[in-house]
């Protein structure tokens, strides 16, 4: 460590000033709009928002999809990450790379693939009809299911990667030791694995949840006007009606959501360890 604080500050200042002025300041002004009406400071914009049945439903749907995607990706993520860690170090590296790959590909391309797959003439419907599961193709596009699938595909890698790195740090003999002591797999998971991989779950869970509730492309393309989420509602309100009041409230809700999730997951996993 070098002691000269002024040099340190001078080096950090440009980045801080840039982000502060070009990013946080405008976002701050937008957020303050949510508390501001011509008459002065007020909560009326929030009251209007939450008493509007459409906004309320969109908020609930966003939460529902965010929580659902987080839980499902955590379940798949643990199983997949355990399998990855079980494999030898070389396979482990390759598998990690395979999960990093899709994250580097444009979300537009990733979402587009689902239009092709989920459409009435798409592969999934061909399989459903071919296997006799349904007489005619199902309506999958523009449903919550489609949005759920799209979001899960976008954010599952984040969970798998977080959990893999958490499991890698698990002492190698913990699980065999618990087995020897006669613990069942569920016990091992809740008593040993979960507490020891808490950090990974927090990181993965926060990334997946905030990613899912703030995604734009997936709900816009796979959901449309019938399956609005907060992000698409915000875009619609601004672009169609120049409605900054509603947009600022949604912005505040979304930012609050991502901060709250972080601490909530931390607390929940913390209680498990205490119990």
């Amino acid at each position, binding site marked *: 460590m070098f002691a000269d604080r002024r040099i340190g500050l001078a080096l950090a200042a440009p980045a801080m000033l840039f982000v502060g002025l070009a990013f946080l300041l405008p976002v701050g002004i937008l957020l303050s709009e949510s508390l501001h009406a011509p008459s002065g400071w007020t909560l009326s914009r929030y009251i209007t928002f939450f008493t509007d049945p*459409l906004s309320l439903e969109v908020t609930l749907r966003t939460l529902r999809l965010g929580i659902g995607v987080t839980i499902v990706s955590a379940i798949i993520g643990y199983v997949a990450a355990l399998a990855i860690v079980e494999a030898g170090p070389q396979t482990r590296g390759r598998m990690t790379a395979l999960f990093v790959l899709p994250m580097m590909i444009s979300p537009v391309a990733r979402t587009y693939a689902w239009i092709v797959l989920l459409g009435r003439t798409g592969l999934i419907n061909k399989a459903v009809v071919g296997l006799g599961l349904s007489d005619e193709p199902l309506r999958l*596009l*523009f449903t919550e299911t489609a949005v759920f699938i799209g979001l899960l595909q976008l954010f599952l890698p984040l969970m798998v990667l977080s959990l893999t790195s958490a499991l890698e740090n698990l002492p190698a003999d913990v699980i065999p030791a618990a087995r020897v002591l006669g613990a069942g797999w569920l016990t091992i998971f809740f008593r040993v694995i979960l507490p020891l991989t808490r950090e990974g779950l927090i990181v993965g869970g926060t990334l997946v949840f905030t990613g899912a509730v703030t995604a734009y492309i997936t709900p816009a393309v796979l959901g*449309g*006007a*019938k399956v609005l989420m907060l992000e698409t509602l915000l875009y619609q309100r601004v672009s*169609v009606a*120049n409605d900054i009041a509603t947009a600022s409230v949604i912005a505040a809700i979304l930012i609050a959501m991502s901060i709250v999730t972080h601490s909530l997951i931390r607390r929940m996993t913390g209680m498990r360890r205490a119990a």
Partner: protein
Amino acid sequence: MSSKQVIGLAAGMAAGLVATGAIAQQRTLVVSNFAVSQDLLRKDLYAPFEAKCNCKVVLDVGNAADRLAKLEARKANPEADVAVLADFSALEAARKDLIEPIDVSKLPNFAKLYDIAKDPIGKNYGVGYTFYATSIVYRKDKIDVTSWTDLWSPKLKNRIALPNITTTQGPLLLFMVNRALNGATPDFATGVDKIAGMKGDIVTFYERAAQLTQLFQQEEIYATVTGRFNWPLIAKLNMPIAWAQPKEGLTGGLNVLTIVKGSKNRDLAYEFINEWLSTEAQTRIANDLIDSPANREVKLEPQIADALTYGEETAKSLHVIPPDQVLANRDSWLAGWNSKIAR
């Protein structure tokens, strides 16, 4: 990467920015327009105009509501010079002081317009350049549509897309459904309730007409409600799709050209509008089935005329909602739609 390379990159980037700035210094006319048929319009209108004016036509495309919101957001420092809008959007823009009255004496081609197109929203805030009919478009191998009430035929369950209320076509849909059910109130309550009752059977409420081609092609839908301007694109799909002539009649609308208030290229905007209204441009545009002409001198082959909404008589036969009525009642339609349909 070394610091030199980083600095080199940054310098290159800065140079790039300056270069983009330099291009912007040329005479450009920014036209805010609907997204449909832009490729053909480039050929029939923008390119010939660019050759004449020695300028560049830059487009900002989107649906009317999108672009109106943009005009409002950028009111102090407008980007667009000419805005192409539905008549009621133009009236709204005029009331919000976003567009300016047009001095029609500067438009030599103005005299050639049908009377209905000359001053549709008053005070010469906009000149009509086309009108269109709106009807049901349907797969004739799957269903036969003869009435607006066929929209809720069991055959179309889960196979129909309707325009969202935020689009130009949304109010027209409510208007005709309401009319078909003998609804009498100006808030179209009967129509709103009908659509609300069937919302579970609707594939999606589309927001951009362009999406319909994809929905038809993928067999997501067998029917929809759209304007005639979208017909050529749908007809090109080579699918058994027909344009309905419902017994209750057709609805439709008029589109206008407006000049954005504070436009920095006003003279160019007048030249452009005059060009668009010219017999030559209107004929080319009509022959490519983009828009039907509002210029009375345009003469079309019968099969072209059939494909468009051609002639002043046809225009007068449409059931239209006057622009001021749209604005007076739109809030109640939106409220009804948001509380009963959108959720």
